[in-house]
């Protein structure tokens, strides 16, 4: 029980000090898990890999998996609750005030400056995914422009999946979940089954 509370507390801190994307919490997770002797550094690396490979918010996946590995279902629930608790407290308090002052002239002014920035942030977040999935050879997160050699080395299968996804989203207006399912199936066919057939 005490150990459960300690895990909850550890993930509470992780949730509290992660601002912005879930990836910002990796160093903190490593420190808490390894420092408390709950996991080795290699296991933490495994947790992060699995959390990335499974659907769902990265932070929740990490919390569930870390809790499950160290203390079973109880640990999973404790860690998930712990990582969400700071948000529950802070976001609800802020929401209370935010929706209250939303229509104030200066708040509207601030929002008119914030909205374009958020759109730009989303636009910018496309780049790492493009670099990871279309140019796996290129160094990640570094220069924003791939060299000509890298452009030529693009996998035609990746381009095909990308093109099909765009068509389904923008032309056929499919639901995002359907598009992801189709792209997953196409991925298995092109990246796994096709090499088996041609090998």
């Amino acid at each position, binding site marked *: 029980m005490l150990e459960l509370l300690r895990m909850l507390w550890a993930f509470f801190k992780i*949730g509290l000090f*992660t*601002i*912005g*994307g*879930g*990836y910002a*919490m990796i160093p903190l997770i490593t420190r808490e898990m390894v420092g408390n002797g709950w996991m080795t550094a290699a296991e933490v690396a495994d947790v992060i890999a*699995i959390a*990335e*490979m499974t*659907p*769902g*918010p*990265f*932070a*929740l996946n990490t919390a*569930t*998996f870390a809790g499950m590995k160290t203390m079973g279902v109880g640990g*999973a629930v404790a860690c998930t609750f712990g*990582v*969400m608790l*700071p*948000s*529950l407290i802070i*976001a*609800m308090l802020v929401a209370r005030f*935010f*929706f209250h002052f*939303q*229509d104030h002239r200066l708040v509207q*002014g*601030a*929002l*008119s*400056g*914030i*909205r*374009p*920035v*958020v*759109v*730009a*942030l*989303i*636009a910018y977040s*496309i780049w790492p995914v493009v670099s990871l999935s*279309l140019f796996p050879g290129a160094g990640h997160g570094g220069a924003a422009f791939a060299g000509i050699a890298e452009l030529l080395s693009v996998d035609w299968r990746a381009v095909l*999946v*990308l093109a099909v*996804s765009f068509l389904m989203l923008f032309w056929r207006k499919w639901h995002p*979940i359907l*598009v*992801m399912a189709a*792209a*997953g199936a196409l*991925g*298995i066919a*092109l990246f*796994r089954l096709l090499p088996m057939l041609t090998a």
Partner: protein
Amino acid sequence: MKQRIKPKFAGDVKKMTELFIITLKLGAFTFGGGYAMFPLMEREYVQNKKWFETDEMLDILAVSQSLPGMISINASIMTGYRLFGVLGAFVAVVGLSLPSLVTLSVISFFYVQFRDNEYVYAALQGIRLAVIGLLVQAVVKLGKPGVRGAFGWIMAAAALAVSLFLDIHPILLILAGAAAGILYTIASGRSAKGGGQDA
């Protein structure tokens, strides 16, 4: 002047059940970082249910990004709170985390096989490509109401340029956007010719 901001649909059990189902979907079908969840949120909350305007969605995302904790969790709490009050926030959080809890608990028993499975890896390669399409769609949809007028375009371009060339935390960009927006509102309120060039 609005007095007290009340939840949009306080006590509407049918709509709350729908919120629960939407957050289950968000939890089960978000791949990658918090931004990848936006297209799904836009589709469900703005397009399908019409519970929010695109503007409101953008504001919630901006605030969620600036608070401690994970963006996806903060955004779910704020949407739930805005719709149904405190109970809504809890419903949203349980819905969002339940898929992670179940999936990761199951996977934790055979995660080595899962991690090294080539079919999983191939499907993930495909899904990542679809996520690019989803993010582009989010930028287009959120950009229409979010980036308005010359001021909006300048802000978006400046934010994009700064993220491309400087390693700056998103929160600083959002704060700068808020400051610029407030200055612009004050300036354009005093004289017809107002110029806000802060970025």
